[in-house]
């Protein structure tokens, strides 16, 4: 876990955040130029197909963010360190935005192509269910103001939710395949032109950088929240604020139970 923690530390330091901000700006600018100007319109769908360059990256991030929630949840339950809980919460808040965005964009794309807003396309439907699971995760965080309970409960939702998503995807795909209807076909033609693929990859990279930037900001806010809490506690406990930051001396380590020793007769 150490190298991961160090990387996270670097990323979220003030300088790291500024660099990410600039990178994000550049990447999004490049992506916009490529999506709107460089890539050609689709043979069948025309310019509407350009929505792919925002819809697909959004969807990619929706799932990536949830994978981060999953990993953070496991790390939190194993180590008890609050930084993993903060990571999971941040990724969930950002992920839910990308998920909603992916669904809205998918709908917008679908309307001119299929004539309706929603056709229960398996991938969009799974994404919609992912959105609900995200909302459940965030709702659970509101159930308790005890940070450790909140973190654990959310972690359970994150883990079970993530494990469930592939099965949901499978079930919805089978469900859908019985009634063939319009599906999101990412592109009109059967193979993707190299320039379109390049544009798509740039878009995905740009959105990923955006995600990292948003994460850096949100994690900094999370640390500020923790500091505010420590400052509220400090006078009541008669302890300096620094001693109350981080996990204090009460860090949990659920995974290493001491072996029970039965005394020899």
């Amino acid at each position, binding site marked *: 876990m150490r190298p991961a923690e160090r990387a996270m530390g670097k990323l979220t330091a003030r300088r790291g955040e500024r660099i990410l901000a600039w990178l994000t700006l550049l990447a999004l600018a490049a992506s916009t130029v490529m999506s709107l100007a460089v890539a050609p319109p689709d043979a069948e769908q025309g310019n509407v197909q350009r929505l792919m360059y925002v819809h697909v990256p959004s969807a990619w991030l929706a799932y990536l963010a949830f994978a981060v929630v999953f990993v953070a949840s496991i790390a939190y339950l194993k180590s008890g360190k609050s930084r993993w809980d903060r990571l999971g919460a941040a990724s969930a808040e950002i992920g839910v935005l990308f998920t909603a965005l992916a669904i809205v964009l998918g709908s917008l794309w679908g309307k001119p192509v299929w004539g309706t807003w929603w056709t229960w396309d398996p991938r969009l439907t799974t994404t919609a269910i992912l959105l609900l699971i995200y909302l459940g995760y965030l709702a659970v965080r509101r159930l308790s103001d*005890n940070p450790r309970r909140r973190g654990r409960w959310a972690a359970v939702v994150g883990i079970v939710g993530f494990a469930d998503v592939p099965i949901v995807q499978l079930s919805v795909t089978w469900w859908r395949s019985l009634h063939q209807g319009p599906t999101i076909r990412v592109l009109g033609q059967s193979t993707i032109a190299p320039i379109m693929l390049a544009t798509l990859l740039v878009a995905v990279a740009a959105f990923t950088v955006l995600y990292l930037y948003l994460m850096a900001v949100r994690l900094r806010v999370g640390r500020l929240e923790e500091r505010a809490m420590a400052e509220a*506690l400090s006078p009541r406990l*008669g302890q300096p604020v620094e001693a109350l930051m981080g996990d204090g001396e009460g860090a949990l380590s659920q995974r290493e139970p001491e072996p029970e020793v039965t005394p020899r007769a």
Partner: protein
Amino acid sequence: MFPRTTDAATLPAAVEPARAGTPAIALSRVTRVFGVIPAVVRVDFTVEPGETVLIRGPNGAGKSTLLRIVATALSPTYGEGHVQGFDLLRGREGIRRRTELLGHRTRLYEDLTASENLRFACAMHDISAAGVPEALEHVGLADVTGERVRGFSQGMRQRLAVARALLRRPPLLLLDEPYAGLDGEAKDIVDGAILEARTAGRTVVLATHDLSRGGLASRTVFMDGGRIVPDPLREGRP
């Protein structure tokens, strides 16, 4: 209605004793907050095996929270400790096997009978249910063995909880305001359990602000505002 101490020996042996040579309880700078409200603040608390310790203090002093931390019902926000030789955070199962908490919440199932409640507790603690009828007799509930708890008074419920503790015979017995809402006879039964534990050499910690009880203790500790404070009556005297 007192459980006779000689009879205690006939109850089935329940739990293996703690590791030798360690304090029964050793807490170091334990702090517990709820939100931003501290309930227990930097408490150092040590109890040797076999002691009977009384904790006194006004409402809200943190006695309940402290006991619940020792019982591992709560984890400390800061600080560390060992109970029966097991770490407060990492050795919870070991602590739970050796500790019984008697509080004013009786943890019973309303629609089960007295006997069924005890049997279930035995199953959860992995001890034999053979001693259930005898335990019920000890606390004077033999004639309501088959009655559902829903109809019980507070006194009867607490007696049932005492029976549960007697069955388990834990090396560490924690009592958190056990006398609340009880009549004199039921209070005596609780004291009987404390006496039985003390006689058997087990450790007892009792928190109560009922001034008429607690005479069995060998030592008194005072709490106020979440901290352990010196005896307010003895301050200034040699």
